[in-house]
């Protein structure tokens, strides 16, 4: 069977996750101290002699360290940003050493609710602390220390990943040359938080949730997680994209006047929800929605984003998508405005793609050409 699987084009090929262990405690913003922790990560390409070509790729809500390539024992499990990263792709692994890392609190191997709490000897479950973008970035910085990378050529991400890229340029301004901030917002709007709260309530009120200790009880709040994902998914697509993809197409050839799936969009959402609930941990999902809600670098500067971005020393590429209503172009412009006020070397592009928030994961040629050209510039810089 293996022979019949076509090698994906320009793939980094077979990849293997690695685990980094940290014995130094991590003080979380919420006050809890993680005594020790692990981060699972993958790397693609080669670190150059002066260790200047590393690019950190930060993941968004539901992704992981598996950014590109595929696994030898699961060739269909292709990295979530494989269209962006690989030999000859916009982030070219022949030039850059790319790192993908699963964040703290995740459910893909890094220390999180599924891990054993070394203080108690029991699985964390619902006791795992609430985390923030800043906590993630601090943990990533220690991974960089361990890998001997004092300065990244770039830190890059989309959506929640972009918030990490932005936080890097605020928290560790000297440790990155470029910050690539795609489909981002400087904080969540009330509407964004509202959608997250609906998702959380769907999970928490599932009778199988058991205060987050569902593993110990042998249950799983799959119904809640499914609804949470369905709600989230609506916000990732534009109205137009949904209309084009599904419109009012029926699931069956006629209306049945009952509560089975009548419309294709219902079927699609149920499918997305089921798929997600089967492989994602509800405790992780709850915490990641909180990570989003808390992100607000301007907060400790009296709401002044310009002051929050004062220390930024990297160049910044900001990209938004015209039909993204979750994090609209106006939100990216707020970031750009604050960067301009600080005379940061910033470039801003608004891509007129029809796909809504999800566009950052797709391969619109205008978007990919721009990222490729930008990395060409990064490459020239580190070579000179």
């Amino acid at each position, binding site marked *: 069977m293996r022979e019949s699987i076509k090698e994906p084009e320009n793939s980094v090929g077979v990849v293997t996750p690695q685990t980094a262990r940290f014995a130094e405690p991590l003080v979380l913003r919420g006050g809890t101290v993680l005594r020790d922790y692990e981060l699972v990560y993958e790397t693609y390409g080669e670190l150059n002699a002066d260790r200047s070509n590393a690019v950190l790729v930060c993941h968004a809500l539901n992704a992981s360290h598996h950014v590109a390539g595929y696994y030898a024992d699961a060739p269909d499990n292709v990295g979530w940003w494989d269209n962006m990263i690989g030999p000859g792709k916009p982030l070219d692994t022949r030039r850059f050493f790319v790192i993908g890392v699963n964040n703290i609190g995740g459910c893909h191997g890094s220390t999180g609710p599924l891990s054993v709490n070394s203080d108690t000897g029991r699985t964390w479950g619902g006791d795992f602390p609430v985390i923030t973008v800043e906590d993630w970035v601090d943990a990533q910085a220690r991974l960089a220390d361990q890998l001997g990378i004092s300065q990244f050529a770039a830190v890059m991400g989309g959506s929640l990943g972009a918030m990490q890229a932005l936080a890097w340029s605020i928290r560790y301004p000297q440790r990155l040359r470029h910050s690539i901030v795609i489909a981002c917002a400087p904080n969540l709007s009330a509407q964004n938080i509202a959608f997250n709260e609906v998702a959380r309530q769907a999970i928490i009120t599932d009778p199988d949730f058991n205060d987050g200790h569902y593993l110990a009880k042998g249950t799983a709040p799959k119904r809640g997680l499914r609804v949470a994902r369905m709600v989230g998914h609506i916000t990732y697509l534009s109205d137009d994209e949904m209309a084009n993809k599904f419109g009012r197409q029926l699931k069956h050839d006629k209306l049945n006047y009952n509560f089975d799936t009548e419309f294709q969009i219902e079927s699609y959402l149920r499918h997305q929800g089921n798929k997600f609930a089967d492989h994602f941990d509800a405790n992780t999902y709850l915490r990641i929605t909180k990570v989003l809600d808390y992100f607000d670098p301007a907060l400790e500067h009296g709401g002044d984003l310009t002051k929050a971005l004062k220390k930024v020393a990297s160049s910044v590429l900001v990209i938004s998508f015209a039909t993204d209503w979750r994090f609209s172009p106006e939100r990216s412009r707020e970031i750009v405005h604050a960067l*301009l006020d600080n005379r940061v070397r910033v*470039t*801003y592009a608004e891509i007129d793609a029809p796909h809504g928030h999800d566009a950052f994961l797709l391969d619109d040629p205008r978007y990919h050409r*721009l990222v490729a050209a930008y990395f060409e510039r990064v490459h020239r810089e580190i070579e000179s």
Partner: protein
Amino acid sequence: MTVINGTQRPDFAAIARTVHRNAHVLDLGCGDGTLLKYLQQTRDITGYGVEIDDGNILACVKNGVNVIQSDLERGLSEFEDNSFDFVVLSQTLQAMRNTERIMKEMLRVGRAGIVTFPNFGYWKNRVQVLLGHMPVSKKLPFEWFNTPNIHLCTVSDFEKFCDERGINIVARTVLTDGKPVTSLPNLLGELAVYHFGG
């Protein structure tokens, strides 16, 4: 890296003579970023271009120029008051719908403005009009039906416009074939470069 020389666009050299070293410059309608790159190379300036066109945004990134994708007709709301030493509008004024507003915005965000435009009063343009046709030339390469130039003006028109609005003209350079014109600029000048404001 290609080195750009001032002869590529005759107004570039004139602009570079006005812009002081290490100035912070905003180039409105910056195209592929050639002017900013030229000013970076010759004047060590910092700054940004503003462009609306996707292809030009890409070209700016390739040219190593920082660019902000935005529609000039919507104003310059991303930019704070007095945040630039110079705001440049190079051969774009005549294509703007709202001429007054962009001039005002230039003076709000910049301490000084530089505007360049093709002089409609240039004698060769006048001859074409006298012969009964809209002028088409190297500086005005469009036909009447496809031109983006909706607000063409003469050197005299622009000076009257500034005078009526209290806009202080600091210096004027009028060029023909890249060389300065000293007498009868409204008749003999092909391209006007104005430095105005503070």
